[in-house]
């Protein structure tokens, strides 16, 4: 059947070719046969699935968005670092602890670089990690539920930008610091930056089974700006590479003062060596204060624990663990090819692209050929580690990804294009414009030994786009390209949410099979869950009133509540008894000072309401749940603070 369909389409395609040639031989090349051909490549018929998932950072939205490729359709926004009224994330009692930090409750974040967990250097689709740049944190999202399940704050860090990239077996998710700061933080003159500020590179271990995160150690580096990073892989597994800028150690007008040195560095960190040192008791436990927030899928509740110390390692304690590779002109992206041999430094102020060789680096280290040292860290000779230079590929190189066929794709912010070039020969093979001023790009499986080819998408930095105008403020835009041929082919423009910095993408098959449909009610261990109508009750504890409430199509139980007084702290603990896919129930009460709750089948969520006015206030289901959704409502009677109305509740009969 499919074949018949395909051949029919092919015949249609041929007809279109002929007719368009006949009608207008000098028509725009984009219309006619070419355009219809491209449309087919991104057309995912109704009822069919996209072949790839793409997870785009939500930038200053603080979230992560889920897209399908090649259609460019957005499926979901996953709340991570920001309050999200749609589901109640960060508003419900259960999820407020997720946004706790050593600075108190932080309702917003700036998410940057998602990276999917790996096994043996290949993407395994279990978890996705993403960093928060402003109040340094790393989050883990479970890809069976597509929910944020863990957030760890990163102490001693500031501008958590060279993050969150995972090693070959997800041994570590790594977080570097873009802004060096006094470590430990203290009151000191800013002008004494040089020599006194430091940059912490954090290696956060990930437990193999549970994925639980824990800061194993922090390497305290000189006070440069650690911009981006990537793990070594294959032969360079065990190493991590960070680009640096501001090796001048300026603290003001960086756009000038941090652009003085002809070369900055890529820092190469042998984390296996430091790990061994730490496992043998090396490093120093330093007092610290940082939040570790974990969401439990069974209690449906997050807990926040303050951790009080962190292990720090000074590079000088572990000789041979850290080296500097001179790299021209404030390099931004730091990208490692699938073989692990080439380390690309995208010198954003350079006209050329610099590629270092891991093999040459090892040889130079072996031969102790050093050009000098910085703060006790050996600097290798530029020429000794250089694999090659891509000459004049474009202006303002930022990031590079690989297709696994020996080609690299680099974005150029200033000349607004993606350039395809060949590893080893360094020749430019193709270039295509972006619309406009591209930042990151993503190839599915990009940060792994096995990129999954076929598609590449470029995420633009300038919000100016090619859509209908929507006023001064608009969303960003991305372009999808087919990279299966010799030349890249632009397929699609699609809008993106927030400012997506990086994105991670992979084939859909692994993830979609594991995606959960419901939470099992019998596994619900929430302390305030009501697992049947018999468990529903209203309990007063002093000024607190706890309402154990259930929802099922289409009623609340109880739906009449009396005895609540002005100034009480009323907890609505809403359990959704449904065990059917896609039957959430919502909860909102008039005058609620937080968001609604959106409760998935089998889940319990709690909302706190402190009534300020006497009256009878309605509550209702906010999610259209059945043909009788409009009937899903109830009343709560609020009496004066000094009244003696007793606590009562009912369903289906007059309240007695």
């Amino acid at each position: 059947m499919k074949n018949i369909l395909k051949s029919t389409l092919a015949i249609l395609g041929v007809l279109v070719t002929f007719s368009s040639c006949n009608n207008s031989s000098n028509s725009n090349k984009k219309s006619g046969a070419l355009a219809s051909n491209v449309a087919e490549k991104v057309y995912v018929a109704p009822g069919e699935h996209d072949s790839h998932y793409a997870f785009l950072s939500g930038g200053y939205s603080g979230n992560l968005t889920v897209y399908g490729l090649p259609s460019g359709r957005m499926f979901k926004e996953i709340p991570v670092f920001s309050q999200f009224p749609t589901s109640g994330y960060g508003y419900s009692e259960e999820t407020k602890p997720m946004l706790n930090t050593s600075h108190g409750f932080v309702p917003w974040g700036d998410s940057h670089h998602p990276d999917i967990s790996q096994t043996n250097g290949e993407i395994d689709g279990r978890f996705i990690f993403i960093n928060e740049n402003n109040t340094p944190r790393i989050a883990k999202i479970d890809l069976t539920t597509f929910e944020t399940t863990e957030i760890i704050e990163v102490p001693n860090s500031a501008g958590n930008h060279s993050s969150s990239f995972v090693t070959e077996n997800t041994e570590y998710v790594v977080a570097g610091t873009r802004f060096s700061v006094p470590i430990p933080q203290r009151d000191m003159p800013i002008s004494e930056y040089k020599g006194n500020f430091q940059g912490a590179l954090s290696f956060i271990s990930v437990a193999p089974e549970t994925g639980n995160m824990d800061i194993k150690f922090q390497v305290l580096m000189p006070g440069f700006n650690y911009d981006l990073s990537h793990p070594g892989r294959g032969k360079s597994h065990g190493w991590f590479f960070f680009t640096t800028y501001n090796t001048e150690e300026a603290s003001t007008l960086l756009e000038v003062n941090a652009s003085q040195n002809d070369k900055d560095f890529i820092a190469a960190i042998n984390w296996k060596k430091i790990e061994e040192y730490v496992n043998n008791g090396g490093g120093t436990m330093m007092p610290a204060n940082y939040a570790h927030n974990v969401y439990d899928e069974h209690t449906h509740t997050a807990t926040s624990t303050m951790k009080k110390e962190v292990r720090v390692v000074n590079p000088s304690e572990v000789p041979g663990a850290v080296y500097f590779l001179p790299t021209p002109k404030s390099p931004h992206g730091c990208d490692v090819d699938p073989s692990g041999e080439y380390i690309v430094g995208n010198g954003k102020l350079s006209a050329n692209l610099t590629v270092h060789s891991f093999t040459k680096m090892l040889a130079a280290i072996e031969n102790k050929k050093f050009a000098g040292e910085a703060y006790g860290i050996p600097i290798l000779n530029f020429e000794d580690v250089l694999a090659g230079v891509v000459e004049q590929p474009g202006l303002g190189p930022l990031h590079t990804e690989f297709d696994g066929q020996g080609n690299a794709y680099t974005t150029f912010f200033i000349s607004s294009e993606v350039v395809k070039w060949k590893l080893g020969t360094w020749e430019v093979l193709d270039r295509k414009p972006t619309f406009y001023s591209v930042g990151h790009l993503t190839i599915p499986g990009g940060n792994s030994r096995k990129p999954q080819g076929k598609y590449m998408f470029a995420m633009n930095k300038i919000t100016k786009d090619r859509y209908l105008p929507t006023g001064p403020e608009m969303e960003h835009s991305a372009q999808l390209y087919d990279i299966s041929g010799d030349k890249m082919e632009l397929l699609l423009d699609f809008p993106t949410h927030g400012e997506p910095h990086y994105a991670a993408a992979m084939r859909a098959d692994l993830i979609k099979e594991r995606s959960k449909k419901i939470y099992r009610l019998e596994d619900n261990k929430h302390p305030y869950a009501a697992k049947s109508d018999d468990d529903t009750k209203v309990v007063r504890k002093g000024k607190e009133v706890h309402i154990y409430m259930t929802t099922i199509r289409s009623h609340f139980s109880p739906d009449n509540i009396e005895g609540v007084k002005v100034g009480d702290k009323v907890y609505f603990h809403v359990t959704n008894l449904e065990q059917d896919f896609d039957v959430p129930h919502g909860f909102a009460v008039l005058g609620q000072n937080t968001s609604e709750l959106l409760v998935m089948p089998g889940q319990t969520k709690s909302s706190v309401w402190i009534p300020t006015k006497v009256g009878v206030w309605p509550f209702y289901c906010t999610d259209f749940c059945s043909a009788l959704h409009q009937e899903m409502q109830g009343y709560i009677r609020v009496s004066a603070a000094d009244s003696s109305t007793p606590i009562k509740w009912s369903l289906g009969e007059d309240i007695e």
Partner: protein
Amino acid sequence: MKKASIIMIIGSMLLLGLFKFPLWNIMLGAPQYPEPLGMNIYVDGIKGVQEFDLQNIDGLNHYIGMKTIPKPGEMWEFSLFPKVILGMVLLGVIIGLLGYVNKVSYKFFIGWFLFMSILGVLGMYDFNNWLMDYGSNLDPHAIIKVTNPDGTPMSYKPPLFGYQKLLNFDVTSLPHIGGYLMFVGMSLTLVAFWLGRKESLKKATE
């Protein structure tokens, strides 16, 4: 007669499949259920195709006032049917064994088949009665009441066999593995009868 007896034994033993596999299956698909809900009917009870299917079918049916799907203890059939099946298997095997040692004639084979067929028809009749009651004995306080053009209440009786549209649901009712094994088993006993008869006719002419 040896060969026929062995086939008789195998045929009747295929009924044991009913203890492992469903006899019948009813699937309910709808626009909002692209992955249909389903119930598997075993000789000793009804189970959901997916873990929560029965609960979800009951949840939907309460709108139109249908009773919940019976639990094994709520229908006498689910305690009697397993005994009847087990009894027929034993009877079939005993007849087969006696046939093997030439203590009974091939006519017992067709006797077993006819007996089993009568029981089967009775079972289907009973099953259909239950479906009828399930689909039309509705709660008068049902939230949604649909009537036929002539004003009588609409019946939600699922089909005994085949496809039927019930409101927004596409309902398909077909035998399942256990049922097919039973049909094959019963057919084999017919084969046994035919073989036994052929042999005995041959003997008679010799």
